[in-house]
C-alpha cells in the first residue's frame, strides 16, 4: 500500500496564430475562406461601432447602463462563427458582437438598453437566449438545453459565454461537472478579460490558467489568444466538432482584455493603470485582423471604408427606428405583459385598478 501517483491530465495548449503585428504562423494558419474572413471584418467593425454608439447614447442619457465589448470582438466572432443556424447561443451580458453575428436586431438592442422589456424579444426562429445578468447562471441553461438536444437526438450544439469572474461561481462548476458526466454537446467559452469589475484575474483564482479547470471535470480545456480571431476560430471549430460528434463538452479560455469600462457605471482608473491599458490596446483584435487581411489581399482602404460606411448606415437606421418605437411605447400597462400564460386574478385586479387610476390621471 504505497503512496502512488495518480495520473490526471495536466497540460493546457495555448494557441496563437496571428500575432499583434499581423504576422501569421503559416503552418497554423487555418486558411479560412475569403468570404468568411471578410465577414469577420464586417461584423467586427459593426460591433465596434455599435458599441461606441451605445456608449455615446449612454453618456447623453438616452440609454441606461450597459457592458461595452471593446477589445473582445475576436473572442466572440471567432467562437460564434462556428455555430450552425439551428445551434443554440447562450450569452452572458457582454456579447453584443456574438448577438450581432447571429442576426440580432440592432434596434432591439438599442430598445432594450433604453429600458424597454420589449427590446428583449427573441424572434421565433432564433435559437438564442436573452442576456443573463447574474454571473454564471446561464451556464446551467446551456447545460439543460444540451441535455434536451441529446435526449431528442438532434444534430445541434450549444455555445455559452461567461467571464473569468464566473469561474468562481458555483454554477460554473456545477454546469461543467454535469456536462462532463452526461457527455453533453456544449462549448463553454470563457472570455478571460482580466477583470471582474475591479478584481484582477490573479486574485480570482490561484490556478495558472482557467482552461485547466476543465480537467477536474474530465473534459478538454484549451487556452487561446482571445484577440486573435484565427486562433479563436480554430479552437472553437475543434470544440464544436467534438460536441457535434458526440465527444462531449470543451472549455475554451479566450485570453483577452476589456479595453473599456466594466459597465457605464464603472471607473476603471480605481483599479488599473493607463500603462496596462495602453499595452493591451496594442494587441487589440480589429487592427490585427485588418493587417492580416491586407497582407492576404482581402482588404484595402476602399473595402475598409465601405465596411465602415455600411456599419454607420445600419447603426443610424436602427437608432432612428428605435426612437420611433420608443415614441410608440407609451403604455405603462405593458409592464403586466408576459408574466405568465394567463395573468393571475389578483394581478389582473391590480392591473385594472392601475388602469382606472391612469384614466383619472389623464382626465386631470
Amino acid at each position: 500500500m504505497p503512496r502512488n501517483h495518480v495520473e490526471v491530465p495536466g497540460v493546457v495548449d495555448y494557441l496563437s496564430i496571428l500575432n499583434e503585428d499581423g504576422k501569421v504562423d503559416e503552418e497554423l494558419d487555418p486558411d479560412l475562406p475569403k468570404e468568411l474572413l471578410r465577414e469577420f471584418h464586417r461584423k467586427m467593425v459593426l460591433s465596434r461601432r455599435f458599441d461606441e454608439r451605445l456608449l455615446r447614447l449612454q453618456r447623453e442619457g438616452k440609454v441606461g447602463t450597459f457592458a461595452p465589448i471593446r477589445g473582445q470582438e475576436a473572442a466572440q466572432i471567432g467562437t460564434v462563427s462556428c455555430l450552425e443556424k439551428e445551434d443554440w447561443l447562450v450569452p452572458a451580458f457582454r456579447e453584443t458582437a456574438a448577438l450581432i453575428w447571429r442576426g440580432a436586431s440592432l434596434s432591439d438592442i438599442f430598445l432594450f438598453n433604453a429600458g424597454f422589456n420589449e427590446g428583449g424579444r427573441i424572434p421565433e426562429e432564433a435559437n438564442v437566449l436573452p442576456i443573463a445578468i447574474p454571473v454564471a447562471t446561464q451556464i446551467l441553461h446551456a447545460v439543460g438545453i444540451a441535455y434536451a438536444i441529446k435526449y431528442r437526438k438532434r444534430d445541434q450544439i450549444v455555445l455559452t459565454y461567461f467571464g473569468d469572474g464566473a469561474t468562481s461561481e458555483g454554477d460554473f462548476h456545477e454546469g461543467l461537472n454535469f456536462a462532463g458526466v452526461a457527455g453533453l454537446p456544449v462549448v463553454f467559452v470563457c472570455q478571460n478579460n482580466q477583470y471582474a469589475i475591479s478584481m484582477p484575474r490573479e486574485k480570482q483564482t490561484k490556478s495558472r490558467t482557467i482552461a485547466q479547470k476543465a480537467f477536474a471535470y474530465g473534459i478538454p480545456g484549451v487556452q487561446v489568444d482571445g484577440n486573435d480571431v484565427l486562433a479563436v476560430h480554430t479552437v472553437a471549430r475543434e470544440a464544436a466538432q467534438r460536441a457535434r460528434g458526440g465527444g462531449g463538452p470543451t472549455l475554451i479560455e479566450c485570453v483577452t482584455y476589456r479595453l473599456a469600462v466594466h459597465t457605464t457605471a464603472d471607473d476603471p482608473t480605481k483599479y488599473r493603470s493607463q500603462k496596462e491599458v495602453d499595452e493591451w490596446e496594442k494587441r487589440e483584435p480589429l487592427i490585427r485582423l485588418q493587417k492580416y487581411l491586407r497582407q492576404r489581399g482581402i482588404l484595402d482602404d476602399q473595402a475598409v471604408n465601405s465596411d465602415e460606411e455600411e456599419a454607420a448606415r445600419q447603426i443610424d437606421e436602427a437608432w432612428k427606428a428605435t426612437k420611433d418605437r420608443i415614441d410608440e411605447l407609451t403604455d405603462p400597462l405593458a409592464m403586466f405583459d408576459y408574466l405568465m400564460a394567463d395573468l393571475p386574478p389578483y394581478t389582473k385586479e391590480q392591473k385594472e385598478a392601475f388602469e382606472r387610476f391612469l384614466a383619472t390621471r389623464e382626465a386631470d
Partner: protein
Amino acid sequence: MPNLTMIEAIRMALRQEMRNDDSVVILGEDVGVDGGVFRVTDGLLDEFGPERVIDTPLAESLIGGCSVGMAIYGLRPVCEMQFSGFSYLGFHQIESHASRFRRRSQGRFQIPMVVRMPYGAGVRALEHHSESKEIYYAHTPGLKMVIPSGPRKARALLLAAIRDPDPVIFFEPKAVYRAFREEVPDREEVFPIGESEIVREGKDLTMIAYGAMLHRAMEAAELLDKEDGVGAEVIDLLTISPLDDSKFCESARKTGHVVIVHEAPRSFGAAAEIMARLIEKSFYYLEAPIERVTGFDIHIPYFAREQEYLPSRDRIVSAARRTLEK
C-alpha cells in the same frame, strides 16, 4: 379504485404523465436507482430509463438551472429538491430565471417545469428537514405555488402542474406522505391550480389551512362541533399562489369569524396575505379580529419540541373560541 398513500399517488401521477408525454423527464438527487429518499420515484428508472429519470450530481442549482434549459428547449422537467430546506441553493435559478424567462424573452420561451420538494415538520428529522418556507416562492411573481393535503389531491394537482405552461413549485407535506391512504381514481383526474376547496361546510366560523395543517384544522372543527355546537367551515387552500380569495372571502361574509392555520412562521406568512385580502374584500362582514394559529417567528426547534411548535388541534380550538367570544 386503488387505495394509496400520498407517496404512491404522486408516483402514479408521474408514471401516468411520463407514459402520456415523452417530454416529461425527472431529475434530482437519488431519484433514479434509489427511487428518492422517500421512495416517491421508486420503479420509474426501470420503466423509463436513465435518460428520463436522471440521477444528478449533488447540486441544487444545477437541478434548477438545468431544468430551466430543458424547459426552454421544450421538455417538461419535473425536478426534485430532496428537502425544501436544501432548495435555497437552487432558489436563485428559480427566482432569477424560471420565473422570468417568459417576460424576458417577450413570450418566446416559456418554462413549463415543476419543482417538487418535501416540506414541513412532524417526522422527527434533522435540522433543515422540517421547515415550511412556501412564502419564499409564493412571494415571487411568475411562479405558482401548490401544496396538496392528501393523496388524491396530490395526484390530481401534480398532473395539472406538469401540464401547466409556467413553473410550478410543488410542496409535499412529508408528515402526510405515509400518514393515511385514500382512494385515488385510476382514470385521469386533474384539479385546477389556483382553486381552493371547501372541505367541510359550516355557518359559524371559517377555518383556512393547507398541507399537513389541514388535518389539524379538521380535527379542531370536529371537536368544536361536538363540544361547542359550532359549525366550522374548513377551506383547503391547495394553491398558495396565485391565491384563490373568492371562497374564503365569501365564507367569511357568511360566518364573520376566521381562523387561519399554517405551520410556517407567522410574520409575513400566508395568513398575513389572507388577512389582507379579507380586509380588502370582506371587511364589513367581519364580526371579530381574525385569529392566526401558526408556527412561531423562530427557527423550528429540533424534533423533541417540534410538536409543541406546530399548531395543535387544541391551539386551533382555543383560537376559534377566542374569536367566537368576541
